[in-house]
């Protein structure tokens, strides 16, 4: 018998090798208690959270909690069904209405996760004979959506406008085309040149999907994302987003002005063949989205935090993923996986949690310590974070 697990042996060996050096497993951390959007207890120690994507700190917002509790009391713990059967409650419609208000768009469709939103929309709208043109550094959910569908997949170099343009021009003029972009790329925290890319995509007759998972609630005048910031939101056919970042709950969505959009509810398999989210999650999400529309001050503070952390880390001598802060993600580039894991552990021992990101999730085979800031991080906390980075960096010998 061939052991189907033998294909995982190289990874198992790499993991065992790393753990044998006394390194803690960076992928099995437990939050024993969560005190606030920015503080938790890990390994019995109070830890500042700097790797949660909880950009706007809505997880403990009073109104968000109250809405969820009320819905749970009134509608029960779960839906036990698909959105197209028994799983659409008042709150599912309400959160879709909140999204339409938030983006000022005609249609909104809520999925159980952001992953499923990309999986469902991409695999459903691009079919046999169509082309999907995507950035090579696209998120796994985008690639998996491509894999699940029947379209031809064409990749172009990360954020390279000319590479996109060349490929669009080489495709058959009459073929259906979907260009898939992200507002903020989550590994390095860099922003896409959407304005240029969307212009050339439109000229080539392509439809455009932009994943704004990491920009919603924070970037753009109304927090609608990078497309809003660059003044091109009206030219985007589909915006994909998630509730598990700025919104502070869980769920995914697609908003669009396409006149036939609603048909997707019947043909999109990751929407149809899974259970709808619990009413409490939907009610919390709706409350959060409506609050995020009026959060100018929090957005300003988050930008301040991002700038302070970026400059501070640079001044300490760390190598960063972007020249300037472009989002609420600051990626610190590690020399290799071993020292990256050691630095991650040293930070944790200093009471600071960041994400350790490694290939294949990262571009160019990099090991990254990815920091995501929160609007609820105080200015003092950011200084504290920098002090902990300095201590850990010196202990591990990276700076």
């Amino acid at each position, binding site marked *: 018998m061939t052991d189907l697990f033998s294909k995982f042996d190289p990874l198992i060996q790499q993991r065992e090798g790393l753990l044998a050096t006394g390194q803690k497993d960076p992928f099995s951390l437990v939050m024993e208690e969560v005190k606030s959007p920015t503080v938790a207890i890990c390994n019995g120690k109070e830890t500042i959270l700097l790797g949660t994507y909880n950009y706007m700190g809505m997880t403990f917002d009073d109104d968000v909690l109250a809405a969820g509790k009320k819905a749970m009391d009134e509608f029960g713990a779960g839906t036990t069904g698909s959105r197209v059967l028994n799983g659409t409650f008042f709150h599912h419609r309400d959160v879709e209405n909140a999204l339409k208000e938030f983006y000022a768009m005609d249609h909104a469709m809520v999925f159980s996760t952001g992953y499923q939103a990309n999986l469902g929309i991409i695999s459903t709208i691009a079919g046999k004979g169509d*082309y999907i043109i995507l950035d*090579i550094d696209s998120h796994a959910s985008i690639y998996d959506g*491509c894999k699940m569908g029947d379209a*031809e*997949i*064409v*990749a172009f*170099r990360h954020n390279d406008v000319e*590479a996109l343009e*060349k*490929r669009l021009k*080489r*495709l058959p003029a009459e073929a259906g085309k979907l260009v898939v972009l992200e507002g903020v790329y989550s590994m390095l925290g860099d922003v896409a040149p959407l304005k240029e890319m969307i212009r050339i995509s439109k000229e080539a007759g392509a439809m455009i999907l932009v994943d704004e998972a990491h920009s919603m609630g924070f970037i753009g005048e109304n927090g609608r994302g990078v497309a809003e910031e660059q003044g091109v939101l009206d030219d985007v056919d589909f915006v994909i987003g998630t509730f598990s970042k700025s919104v502070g709950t869980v769920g995914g969505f697609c908003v669009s002005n396409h006149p036939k959009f609603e048909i997707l509810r019947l043909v999109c398999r990751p929407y149809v063949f899974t259970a709808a989210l619990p009413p409490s999650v939907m009610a919390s999400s709706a409350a959060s989205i409506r609050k995020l529309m009026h959060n100018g001050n929090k957005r300003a503070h988050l930008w301040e935090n991002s700038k302070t952390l970026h400059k501070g880390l640079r001044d300490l001598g760390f190598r960063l993923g972007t020249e300037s802060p472009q989002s609420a993600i600051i990626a610190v580039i590690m020399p290799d996986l071993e020292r990256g894991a050691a630095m991650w552990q040293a930070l944790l021992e200093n009471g600071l949690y960041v994400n350790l990101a490694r290939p*294949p999730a990262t571009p*160019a*085979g990099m090991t990254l310590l990815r920091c995501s800031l929160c609007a609820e991080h105080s200015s003092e906390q950011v200084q504290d974070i920098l002090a902990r980075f300095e201590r850990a960096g010196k202990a591990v010998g990276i700076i």
Partner: protein
Amino acid sequence: MTDRSEMYDRLKGLIEPFNKKGVEISETTTFAGDLEWDSLTVMDFVAEVEDSFDIVISMNMQAEIENVGQLVDAVGKLTA
């Protein structure tokens, strides 16, 4: 046949700058196994081939191309 051997020579020329290990190239040379290219190198090389022939090699097609001979055939088809 001359067309094919011309194509082979041209692609061999494009492979050379990426052939850091100085592997002897033949029709059966594999990109992942013999040349030990990682996904980044593959991407750069594919872009180079696409630009040289003004074609698009979709990821669906790339998945089927494991060795130099298969690449020659695929580019031949795309430029036919």
